[in-house]
């Protein structure tokens, strides 16, 4: 099997045993990027020199007889361009930060480096992580390797497409309303949103601080688990980071891969089916549920009546927090500044810069949030949305009294065509219908490939949700399902 088609776990084992060098593995992926990225456009920046240097350092350590810095030392990774990196630009897919070189590394970036993981470059995303298609990037859309006319999901479409196009065996995403799980679903890859607070947000450029969560993306459940344990854990630099050990997700993935789910109670969310769900998605999901039963799981239907209010609540809470967070882009201390010609005041420069630097979706959300937070509307909009957040959390609490994990389709449809929803914000927002509840409640959720739609032959995602800090439960179920059903990525078209 060629280097680029192997799992991160296999590559790591071969690098650590000396069968392959990290430099060879890194070069193979850089070659692949050079070969296909002009059509996929997963990357905004490729750091070949830095990657090879990091790979060489891992090889030197192994040659010197040192133990690998981590189970994934020497394996390359693609990093979403929303985490700060000292040696690479950090743009967040925005003209506002074009060419910006942060003076510090995010905690997640630092952990990757310390683990000997080789950062290939920064991946494309919807501007400031706002979107479900990566069409909102100021640098042009990323294309889905399954069908180049379709979206790779968003906001982390670059990170999911890089995996599906075999440009990287591992990547990092962030999930505010589904931006890891939905791209995973539509590209046939694995995407995990850890429990809120499970992975540090220090150096993650903020969109909606109470919802944003970084997490691992990979082509297999075990690879995601290995990466999860490296990036997770308490960080004193993030006051919302949970001060507790990382759930034992690698052990859970290995246990699950043995294929026995006897005693595991799985709840199917009743509200996430019917109108708006593609037939091909529903049938693939039902087949996955049958597979879980065959593995010994006890499956029951569970009602979470307030989940239908999650999407409206999200589109009040996230824009409200975004309108506040993005006020920092004021053209004064870093980032873009226009019209500084002596004729304009600071406030005019600020407004003109924000007009020039932000795309339409970012402006829409800033104004929506400004509206929802303004006097006279606050109680009806933002206040009500916060109450819905309570109701959704209560739905989860009740559900998890009955079952160990909840399942649903990750997205109502497979990948749509580029341009299809670009002018209809509400249609675009529906892509995150099933993923948003876990962001509002802060519990864990992931998407694992569950076959191809019988309607269009495109990947479908199975979403598995677990209580906060019980991330290991969903890994166990995902690994068992993956072992039984097999992945889909081998069936992706050759680029």
């Amino acid at each position, binding site marked *: 099997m060629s280097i680029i088609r192997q799992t991160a776990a296999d590559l790591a084992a071969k690098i650590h045993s000396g069968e392959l060098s990290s430099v060879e593995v890194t070069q193979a992926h850089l070659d692949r990027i050079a070969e296909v990225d002009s059509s996929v456009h997963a990357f905004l920046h490729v750091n070949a020199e830095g990657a090879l240097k990091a790979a060489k350092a891992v090889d030197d350590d192994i040659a010197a007889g040192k133990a690998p810095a981590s189970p994934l030392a020497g394996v390359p990774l693609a990093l979403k361009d929303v985490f700060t990196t000292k040696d690479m630009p950090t743009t967040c897919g925005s003209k506002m930060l074009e060419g910006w*070189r942060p*003076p*510090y590394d995010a905690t997640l970036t630092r952990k990757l480096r310390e683990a000997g993981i080789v950062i290939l470059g920064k991946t494309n995303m919807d501007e400031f992580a706002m979107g479900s298609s990566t069409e909102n990037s100021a640098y042009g859309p990323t294309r889905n390797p399954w069908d180049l006319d379709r979206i790779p999901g968003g906001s982390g479409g670059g990170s999911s497409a890089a995996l599906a196009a075999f440009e990287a065996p591992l990547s990092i995403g962030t999930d505010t309303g589904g931006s890891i799980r939905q791209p995973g679903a539509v590209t046939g890859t694995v995407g995990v949103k850890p429990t*809120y*607070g499970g992975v540090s947000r220090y150096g993650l450029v903020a969109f909606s601080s*109470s919802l944003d969560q970084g997490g691992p993306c990979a082509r297999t459940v075990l690879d995601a688990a290995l990466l999860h344990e490296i990036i997770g854990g308490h960080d*004193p630099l993030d*006051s*919302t980071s*949970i001060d507790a050990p990382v759930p034992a997700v690698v052990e859970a993935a290995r246990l699950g891969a043995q294929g026995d789910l006897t005693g595991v109670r799985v709840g199917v969310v009743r509200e996430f089916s019917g109108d708006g769900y593609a037939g091909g998605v529903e049938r693939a999901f039902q087949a996955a549920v049958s597979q879980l039963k065959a593995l010994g799981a006890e499956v029951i239907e569970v009602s979470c009546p*307030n989940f239908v*209010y999650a999407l*409206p609540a999200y*589109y*009040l809470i996230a824009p409200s927090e975004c*309108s506040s967070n993005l*006020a920092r882009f*004021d*053209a*004064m*201390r*870093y*980032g873009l500044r226009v019209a*500084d010609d*002596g004729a*304009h*005041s*600071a*406030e*005019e*420069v600020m*407004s003109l810069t*924000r*007009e020039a630097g*932000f795309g*339409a979706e970012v*402006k*829409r959300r*800033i*104004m*929506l949030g400004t*509206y929802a937070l*303004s006097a006279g509307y606050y*109680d*009806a*909009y933002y*206040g*009500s*949305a*916060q*109450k*819905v*957040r*309570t*109701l959704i*959390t209560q739905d989860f609490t009740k559900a998890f009294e009955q079952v160990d994990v909840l399942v649903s389709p990750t997205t109502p449809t497979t990948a749509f065509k580029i341009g299809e929803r670009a002018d209809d914000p*509400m249609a675009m927002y529906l892509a995150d219908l099933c993923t948003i509840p876990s962001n*509002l409640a*802060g*519990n864990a959720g992931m998407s694992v490939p569950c076959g191809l739609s019988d309607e269009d032959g495109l990947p479908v995602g199975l979403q598995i949700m677990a209580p906060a800090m019980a991330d290991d439960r969903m890994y166990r179920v995902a690994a068992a399902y993956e072992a039984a059903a097999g992945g889909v990525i081998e069936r992706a078209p050759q680029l």
Partner: protein
Amino acid sequence: MSTEPPSITRDEVAHLARLARLTVSENELDVFAGQLGDILNAVAKVSEVAGADIPPTSHALPLTNVFREDVVRPGLTQEQALSGAPKSEDGRFAVPRILGEEA
């Protein structure tokens, strides 16, 4: 809350844009008024279940006053802090004039 479907006028969009320090073009005012109206119509649904007896949740984690040890640790140098500045002068951020503006 009123039972009328929420809508948003061009003037309201212009007001929001001013509050958010966005210079919005004439054409954008029309587009945003329509889109924001559609979105507000869809999200107003939250008031259906938001009863007076339900406490609000602002954050998934019930955290208050997270402290760390009050010890000196290295920070950014002046040069690093200014490295991304659009303009700097004498070790400081240089900004356009802020006085003499209309109130």
